[in-house]
């Protein structure tokens, strides 16, 4: 065999170098604004800090043990858990219902699709302000309706019993747009022939829904469930505008709690510990999600 002088290491690694160059912006940005701060957050969670967020006293796991025994934090965790429970299932079922309706081939369906997806174009701040008005104790629409049908009025945002539910209702509304859009896209990716052949077999609507639509949609559903879960844990804007965590801490969801601890109380150590806990929760939830659901998801 004729020997060929192999090109040098420099030349052979050309792809590696060029590839790295193209990835460089992402790598730098991720390092500065994601990896470094994540590590720094973990680091700070073991310290008491000064006003400028510098580590002052190493307290080991004390921040964590403090948090896990603090009624305020436990309350915040409970509120977060409840909030997720209130918003995610209902939100997705509602969006799925809308998507199924909007997937019918009818005249003017484009108009309805636009209506359903509209909330995606409305910011959390704007939505919150609108809902603040709807929930208003005297001029708000809901209480007017209750009054009109002779029911006792509700202090939607001021009653600790109701505040979290109210926030959940407004959040479901805010999120339907995005979930709807994704689910509709998923529905439209399903091969039309599947329906045609099942129609020939004489399958009814709900049979088709159960045996074709849902299984074929499962990857999209899986995606939107994951995203919705993560989003629910990250809720902030509506709390800040609607209730500021009140009344009596009943809507102090975890991100709001982090925000207050860090930027109002300047307790960056405990705030970081909370942030780490948030990170762990999201990690566990997504991993569990993948483990539990991936088996059932039907990928084409």
């Amino acid at each position, binding site marked *: *065999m*004729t020997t*060929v002088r192999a090109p040098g290491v420099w030349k052979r690694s050309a792809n590696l170098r060029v590839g790295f160059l193209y990835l460089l912006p992402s790598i730098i940005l991720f390092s500065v604004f994601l990896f470094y701060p994540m590590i720094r957050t973990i680091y700070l969670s073991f310290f008491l800090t000064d006003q400028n967020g510098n580590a002052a006293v190493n307290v080991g796991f004390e921040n964590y043990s403090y948090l896990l025994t603090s009624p305020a934090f436990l309350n915040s965790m409970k509120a977060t858990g409840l909030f997720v429970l209130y918003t995610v299932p209902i939100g997705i079922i509602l969006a799925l219902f809308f998507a199924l309706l909007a997937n019918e081939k009818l005249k003017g369906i484009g108009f309805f699709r636009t209506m359903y997806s509209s909330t995606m174009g409305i910011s959390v701040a704007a939505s919150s302000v609108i809902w603040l008005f709807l929930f208003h104790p005297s001029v708000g629409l809901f209480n007017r309706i209750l009054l009109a049908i002779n029911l006792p009025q509700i202090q939607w945002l001021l009653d600790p019993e109701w505040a979290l539910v109210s926030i959940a209702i407004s959040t479901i509304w805010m999120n339907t747009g995005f979930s709807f859009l994704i689910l509709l896209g998923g529905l439209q990716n399903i091969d039309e022939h599947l329906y045609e052949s099942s129609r020939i077999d004489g399958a009814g609507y709900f049979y088709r829904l159960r045996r074709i639509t849902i299984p074929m949609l499962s990857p999209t559903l899986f995606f939107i469930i994951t995203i919705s879960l993560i989003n629910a844990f990250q809720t902030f804007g509506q709390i800040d505008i609607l209730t500021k965590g009140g009344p009596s801490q009943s809507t102090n969801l975890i991100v709001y709690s982090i925000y207050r601890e860090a930027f109002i109380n300047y307790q960056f150590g405990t705030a970081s510990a909370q942030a780490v806990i948030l990170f762990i929760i999201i990690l566990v939830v997504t991993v569990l999600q993948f483990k539990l659901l991936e088996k059932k998801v039907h990928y084409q």
Partner: protein
Amino acid sequence: MKRVELIDVSKSYDKQVDVISNIDVTIEPGEFFVLVGPSGCGKSTMLRMIAGLEEITGGVLEIGGKRANHLSPDKRDLSMVFQNYALYPHLTVGQNITFGLDVKKVKKTVQMERAKEVAEMLGLTDYLKRKPRELSGGQRQRVALARAIVSEAPICLMDEPLSNLDAKLRAHMRTEIRRIQRKLGITMIYVTHDQVEAMTMGDRIMILHDGKIQQVGKPIDIYNYPANPFVASFIGAPPMNISPARMEPSKSGIFIEDTIHVSMNEAQSIASSARSLLAGIRPEHIKPVITGAEEGNKIQVDVTNVEILGNETVFSFQVGQREWMAKWSGQWDMAIGDKVPILLGSEYFCVFDEETGELIRKPEGLEHLSIAKEVSI
């Protein structure tokens, strides 16, 4: 017009198994060279090594007498047409054709001129403003061709360019490509898995199997004198009938599948002793017995299948373990189960050494059939 020379070229993707090995071949300037072989045999790999899209892991590639192993694709002075055409979907036909010229900073006026000329040659003038997705498969194919021609590269590589077209269009494009190649005198290296394409287009063909060269030569020579059983059964349709055979003790002929005796006068020279052999005969060389007076080995066979293809009749019959086929011109009235007398002319038989695959006896007396042959493949 450049020569392309491969000297002991080999290729492996994982540094262990060679997918191509010991390729030694010279493609002459202006030649239409066809690379043919079954799927996965390494045709594309070899072509892509010539193009510089794939690294050569062993041996030397010379283009125009210069070593080109590590030359980048654009420095090799060649053009390439891909199976899926690889047209830029966002550019118009005109822009697609001039794309390469634009990259090479050819003047706009010259670009236009050359594009117009090539478009005319390929009948694309009316489509220059369209996007590729607004064209039919055949038109896209022609755009891809135009793109290769317009570059005026002395070497053109094509990887199964016609396999996405329907049969009729394919036949038309075959002659079209051949005509253009002759006209421009470019060196063409053409990959196909279709032996009809190989036979009809190539000045020379190279048959590849498992990454190894099986045979290189003119289409007719390969058809007549296949170098080994693989080539014999790969080229020609229906394929050559091949069965195990052995030398008769008296050396006056051979026994095929222990059932058919074929006498051969020069049998002595074929095999020294009890080597196992393979005997092969093309279906069209199995002749009907009509008058009863024909010379040669006459036998009776039971027809197991018949296909009448309009102008010819193909039927099969059992020879020992194998099913053989015969092809007769004309429409023959026969049915499954019929007994048919056939004539096995000993001069038509190829004999291979079973172990090495080597052709040890060439068929004879084929010259006078050369006119009929190329039609009947």
